[in-house]
C-alpha cells in the first residue's frame, strides 16, 4: 500500500496534515502524536512582526463545530524561525508555513525571510484583513487575490499554496485567479464567517462579534467547494473543513483533493491526525486500493 502524494514537486509520505492554527507549532501535540507520522505540519499564521490578536472571548462552541476569532496572534517571523521552525526541523515531516499580513509588503517580507529555511512550502492565508482595502480580505476579491499571488510568486523560493476563503460568491473564480497568477496549489476551506449571540445576556459570545466557523458541521460545504474547484483548475488542492475520520478524508480525496488537513478536530481528539491516516489506510485495504492517488477526484 502506497500513501505517498506529490504537490508541486514536494513529496509527502502521506496525505494527512495538521491544519494551520489548530496544531500550534506541533510542539503542543507532541504528547499525543508522533509528528514523524504526519504528511506535513502546517504552522500557525506568522507575520513579519508579532501580532496581539483579538480580545477574549476568542472561541465559542456551536452545534457540531466552533467559532474562532483569534485574530492571528503570532510571535512574529524572528521568534518563529528561531523556535518553532527549529523545533519542527527535527522531525521527518514536511513543514508548511502559513503566512499572514496586513499589506502585500508584510507578506513579501515573511516570504523572503523564509527563503533559505527548511520550510517545504508556503501557505498564504488571504483571509487576513487588508488594511489598504478597508479590511476586505485579500482572498475575497479576484483581482486582489491575483495581485498578491503574483507578487508572492515572484519572491518565493518555495512552492506557494494559496489558502482560499469560503466567504465568497464563487469559489472557482478565486481559484482560477490564484492559478492564473501562478499559485502552485490551493488549500481550502478556511473558516466560514459566523456569529453566536448569548440570548440571556443579549450579548455577542465572541468579543469580535463574528468568528470563523469550522468543525464537522462545515464539512459538506467544504467538500462541495473542493469538488467545484477541482473541476475548475489543474493545480492540486489540499482539502479541509471538519475532517474527523479516515472516511471524511476519503470524501475530500474523491472530491478532488490531493491531500487533507485536520483542524478543529484536534481539539476534540488530540490524536485525530494519526487516526485519520489510519482510517485512510483501512479504507484502502478494504477496497484493495494500491496507491492513495487512485482516490483523487475518483467520484463518479
Amino acid at each position, binding site marked *: 500500500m502506497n500513501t505517498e502524494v506529490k504537490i508541486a514537486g514536494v513529496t509527502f509520505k502521506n496525505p494527512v496534515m495538521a491544519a494551520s492554527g489548530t496544531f500550534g507549532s506541533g510542539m503542543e501535540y507532541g504528547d499525543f502524536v508522533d509528528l514523524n507520522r504526519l504528511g506535513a505540519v502546517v504552522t500557525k499564521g506568522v507575520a513579519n512582526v*508579532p501580532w496581539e490578536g483579538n480580545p*477574549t472571548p*476568542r472561541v465559542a462552541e456551536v452545534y457540531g*463545530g466552533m467559532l474562532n476569532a483569534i485574530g492571528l496572534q503570532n510571535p512574529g517571523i524572528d521568534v518563529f524561525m528561531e523556535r518553532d521552525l527549529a523545533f519542527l526541523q527535527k522531525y521527518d515531516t514536511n513543514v508548511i508555513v502559513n503566512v499572514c499580513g496586513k499589506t502585500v509588503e508584510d507578506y513579501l517580507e515573511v516570504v523572503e525571510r523564509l527563503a533559505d529555511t527548511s520550510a517545504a512550502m508556503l501557505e498564504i492565508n488571504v483571509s487576513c484583513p487588508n488594511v489598504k482595502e478597508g479590511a476586505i480580505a485579500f482572498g475575497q476579491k479576484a483581482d486582489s487575490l491575483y495581485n498578491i499571488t503574483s507578487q508572492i510568486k515572484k519572491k518565493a523560493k518555495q512552492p506557494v499554496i494559496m489558502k482560499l476563503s469560503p466567504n465568497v460568491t464563487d469559489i472557482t473564480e478565486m481559484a482560477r485567479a490564484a492559478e492564473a497568477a501562478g499559485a502552485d496549489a490551493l488549500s481550502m476551506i478556511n473558516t466560514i464567517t459566523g456569529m453566536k449571540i448569548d440570548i440571556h445576556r443579549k450579548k455577542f459570545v465572541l468579543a469580535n462579534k463574528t468568528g470563523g466557523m469550522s468543525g464537522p458541521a462545515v464539512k459538506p460545504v467544504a467538500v462541495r467547494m473542493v469538488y467545484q474547484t477541482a473541476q475548475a483548475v489543474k493545480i492540486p488542492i489540499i482539502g479541509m473543513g471538519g475532517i474527523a475520520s479516515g472516511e471524511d478524508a476519503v470524501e475530500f480525496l474523491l472530491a478532488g483533493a490531493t491531500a487533507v488537513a485536520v483542524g478543529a478536530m484536534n481539539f476534540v481528539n488530540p490524536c485525530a491526525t494519526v487516526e485519520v491516516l489510519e482510517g485512510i489506510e483501512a479504507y484502502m485495504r478494504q477496497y484493495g486500493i494500491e496507491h492513495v492517488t487512485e482516490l483523487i477526484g475518483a467520484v463518479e
Partner: protein
Amino acid sequence: MTRKKKVTATVISQKQIAEQIYDLWLETKLAKNAHPGQFVGVYPHGESMLLPRPISICEADKARNRLRLVYRVAGKGTAEFAACKAGDQLEILGVLGNGFPVDKAKGKRVFLMGGGIGIPPMLELAKAMDDKKQILLGYRNKDLFLEEDLAKYGDVYVATEDGSVGTKGNVMDIIRAYSLHADMIMACGPMPMLRAIKQYAAEKGIEAYISLEERMACGVGACLGCVCRTTEKDAHSHVNNARICTEGPVFEAREVDI
C-alpha cells in the same frame, strides 16, 4: 512536565451537594500526576458538543487513582455530566495547566480564598500545604459546599452575599471583619473577587496567586483561544498575552492585567 493524555475515566460516584453543584469522583490514572490548581478537560458525549469542559481538580487520591471534580451545572455540557451514574464513562484530557506554586508558600501565613465555583481547587491545595492556613470562602447564600472538607486543613471563615451564614459580603469582607493577616494569597473565584485580591495584595505588598478562567478550545496551548492580558511580554507568545491553559490558569496577580 508530565505527559498529557486523553483517557477514559470511570465514574465511581456522583452526588449533588448544593443547588446545581455536583460532586463527582472518577477513576483515572491521571490522578497520579495531578497538582493543586491544575484542571482536566471533560468531554460531553453529545456529538453536537465538541469541546472539552475545563474543570479544576478538587481532590486527587493518587494511591487509588481517583480524581474528584466539583462543578456547577452551567449549560448543556455540565448538565450532561450531572446525569452520570457510577459505572458510566467520561473521556477526559489532562492534566492541564500549571497549578498553584505550593513550594513558595512554605513557612508563610497564607490565605486560601475561594469564591463560589472557585472553591473546589482550594481543597487539593489545602491538602498539599503543611503550614497553617486561613481558608476564606465566599458563597451566595447558606447553600454551602466543601466547607466541612476544607475545615480539616485549616481555619475556615465563611462569607455569604445575603448574610445568611458568616460574614455578610464576600471574602474581602472576612479579612476586614476578623482583621486577618497573611504573607501570601492563593485564590480562585469570579473576576471581581480576583481584581479585589490583586488590589489588596498590591497595597499590602504581598504575593497573590490567582487562578483565571477563559473560554478554551484545545486546552493544550495550540489554539490561542484562552489568553489573558499580561503586564509584560509573555515568554512564549512574545506579545502581552499568556495562554491560561498552559502558562496558567494560576498567575501571580502582578503578571496579569485583569
